[in-house]
C-alpha cells in the first residue's frame, strides 16, 4: 500500500507570552510524531484532552504552521507549500468537526452550505441532490436551515459538504462526540459505507476507544504530544503493550464488570515531567523512566510500535 499521508518528526511548539502573572515559556503540543496513513486506510488517533490529537490533525492539514518535521500528501512534500499551491490539494483533504451546529452557517440553507465549496472550486452544482442522498438525507432537506435539523442530520450535511469536493482524505475530529448514541451508530454506519464505496482514507480522532475500534484498522495512542503506541487496532486495543494504553482501556466503563483505576491526571503540557511523560502515573515506572529523555517509539513487533523502556523486556508476553 502507498502512503496517502505521512508525517516525519512532526512538531508544534506554542510560545506563551509573558504576562503579569506568568513568565514566557513554550508548550510542545506535538513533539516529534511519525505517522503513516496508507491509501484507503483508517487510522484512529486516541488520547485524553490536551494530548495534542487535534493539533496534530491541524498540522497534517497545514491549518497551523509547522514548527518542525515534514508532511507529505499523495507522495508530495507539502510542509513548505505556499497557500496558493496548497489550495488545489485542499479539495482532496477535508475536515469534519465535532460540533456540526457550529460548523454550519445558521443563515444558509442546506443547499447553499453544500454548494459553497463547489462554487469556490468552480464545480458543477447539479449533483447536490445526489450528494444529499449519499449521506442519507431526503432531497426536501435542501431547503431547510440548520435550526430545523437534528444533530445527526446536521452532521450528515457536514459530511455531504466535505464529500462535495471528491476528497481522498477525510480528517474526522470527534465526529460523533456531540451526538446521542443511537444517532452515533447511524453516522458510524454511514462513514463505514462511504469509505468502502469511495475508497476514502480516514484520520479519525476520538476519545472513545470503542468507536475507534469499530471504524479504524490502525490506531495511534497519544500522550502529552507524543505517540506512545501504534499498531493494528485489534492488537493495540485488544492486547495493549504500553502502560498508558492499558490504563486508558481499563478506565473505560464497560457494560460488564468495572475496570481498574489509573492514578493521577494528565500533566500540564507546559510543564511536562522529565523522562517518560507517563512515568508519574505509571504503575511500572523504574528509575530509568524518571530521568533523561522520553523513550523513543520503536518497532517491537511487525507493524507495532511502542514508546516504553519496559516493553520488549518483562512487559511483553
Amino acid at each position, binding site marked *: 500500500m502507498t502512503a496517502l499521508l505521512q508525517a516525519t518528526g512532526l512538531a508544534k511548539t506554542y510560545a506563551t507570552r509573558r504576562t503579569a502573572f506568568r513568565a514566557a515559556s513554550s508548550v510542545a503540543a506535538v513533539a516529534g510524531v511519525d505517522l503513516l496513513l496508507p491509501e484507503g486506510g483508517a487510522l484512529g488517533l486516541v488520547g485524553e484532552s490536551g494530548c495534542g490529537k487535534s493539533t496534530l490533525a491541524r498540522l497534517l492539514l497545514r491549518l497551523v504552521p509547522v514548527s518542525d518535521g515534514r508532511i507529505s500528501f499523495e507522495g508530495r512534500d507539502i510542509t513548505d507549500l505556499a497557500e496558493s499551491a496548497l489550495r488545489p490539494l485542499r479539495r482532496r483533504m477535508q475536515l469534519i468537526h465535532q460540533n456540526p451546529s457550529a460548523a454550519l452557517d445558521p443563515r444558509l440553507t442546506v443547499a447553499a452550505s453544500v454548494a459553497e465549496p463547489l462554487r469556490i472550486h468552480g464545480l458543477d452544482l447539479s449533483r447536490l441532490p445526489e450528494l444529499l442522498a449519499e449521506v442519507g438525507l431526503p432531497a426536501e432537506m435542501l431547503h431547510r436551515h440548520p435550526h430545523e435539523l437534528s444533530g445527526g442530520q446536521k452532521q450528515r450535511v457536514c459530511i455531504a459538504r466535505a464529500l462535495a469536493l471528491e476528497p481522498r482524505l477525510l480528517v474526522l475530529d470527534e465526529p460523533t462526540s456531540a451526538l446521542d448514541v443511537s444517532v452515533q451508530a447511524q453516522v458510524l454506519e454511514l462513514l463505514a459505507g462511504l469509505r468502502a464505496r469511495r475508497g476514502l482514507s480516514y484520520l479519525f480522532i476520538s476519545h472513545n476507544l470503542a468507536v475507534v475500534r469499530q471504524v479504524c484498522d490502525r490506531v495511534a495512542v497519544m500522550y502529552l504530544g507524543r505517540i506512545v503506541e501504534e499498531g493494528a487496532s485489534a492488537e493495540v486495543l485488544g492486547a495493549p503493550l504500553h502502560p498508558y494504553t492499558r490504563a486508558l482501556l481499563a478506565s473505560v466503563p464497560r457494560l460488564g464488570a468495572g475496570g481498574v*483505576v489509573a492514578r493521577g491526571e494528565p500533566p500540564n503540557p507546559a510543564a511536562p515531567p522529565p523522562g517518560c511523560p507517563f512515568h508519574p502515573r505509571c504503575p511500572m515506572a523504574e528509575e530509568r523512566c524518571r530521568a533523561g529523555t522520553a523513550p523513543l517509539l520503536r518497532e517491537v513487533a511487525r507493524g507495532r510500535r511502542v514508546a516504553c523502556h519496559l516493553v520488549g523486556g518483562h512487559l511483553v508476553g
Partner: protein
Amino acid sequence: MTALLEIEEYRLAFDSFDGSAAVLDGIDLTIEAGSTLGIVGESGCGKSVLARSLLGLNPSPPARVASGQIRFEGRDLLTLRPAAMRALRGRRIAMIFQDPASYLNPVLSIATQMEDAIRGQDAAAGGAVRARRAARAHAHSLLGSVGLPDPARLLASYPHQLSGGMRQRVLIAMALAGDPTLLVADEPTTALDVTVQAQVLALIAELVRDRGLTLMLISHDLGVIAAACARIVVMYAGTVVEDAPTRALLEHPLHPYAQGLIAAVPDLDRPEITPRGIPGSIPSLLSPPSGCRFHPRCDRATARCAAEKPLLRELLPGRRVACHHATP
C-alpha cells in the same frame, strides 16, 4: 428496605410562546434508602429536569408542575415552601453537576467557598453557625475524605489552579458538607477524561458504601451507569420506559427503546458486533407523538401503540416496562 423517594404521576410542562411542552409525562419511580439508581436516556429525554425537580431547581416559569407528587421521607417536595426547601437542600439532598468549573466562583479561594458552604448548612440547620476557623477545619477533613492530597494547599488555591477532576472532587466535598442522605449526580463525569472519570466513579462508589448514601446518577452513558448503579431506569421523551436491575436490563432489555439503546453502544470487547442506530430522531415535546412516544421509531409499533399510551407495568418481579408488546 423503605422508600426514600417516591415519584408518582409527575408531570412537568415548560410553557413557551410556541405552546406548552410536556417535558415529563407521568413519571413513576421509587428509590429505596441506601440503593443506587441510574437514570439513562438521550438528550432531551427529561432526565436532568427530573433530577432538578428534586431540589426545586427548575425555574418557574417556564416550568409548571401539571400534576403528581415527589415524596421524600414522606413529604411532598413539590408543595414545600421555599424556606423548607432550603433546609432540605444540601442537608438531606445534595447535588453535583456535569461541569464542575461553572459551579465554582473563579475569584474566591476554595477555602472561602467551602467555608461558605459549611456555614450555610449550619444556618439552614437552624443551629449555631460555626466560625470560619472551625469551618475551615471541617473543610480540611472533607477534602481529605474525597481523596484529595494536601488539603491545606488546596484550600489556599483558586479554581483555575485545579484540574477538572480535582474541581469535581471539591464539589463532591462541598456536597458532603451538609451530611446528606441522597446524592443526586447529574452527568458528574461527562466533562472529565476517561482515566479521571474512572477515579471519580470509584470515589462515588466508596462514598455510597462508607456513608450509606442513596445515589441517583443521571447519565447518557450506559457504561457509567452500569459501573455505579444496581438499578437502571431508562427514559425516553419524558417518560420512563423501563425500570430494571442493572444486569437484567443489560442482558435482557424488554422495551424496544432500551434494546435499541443497548444495541447502539459500541462494545470495546466485542468489536465484531456492529452497533446499530435507531432510525429517526427524538420527537418534539411541543407536539409529542400520540400513544407511546416511541412508536414512530419502533419496528414493533401497531395501531394500538399510536392510540393508547402504554402503562408502566410490572412484567417480571422487580422489572417494569411501558410497552404494549413487551413479553418477559
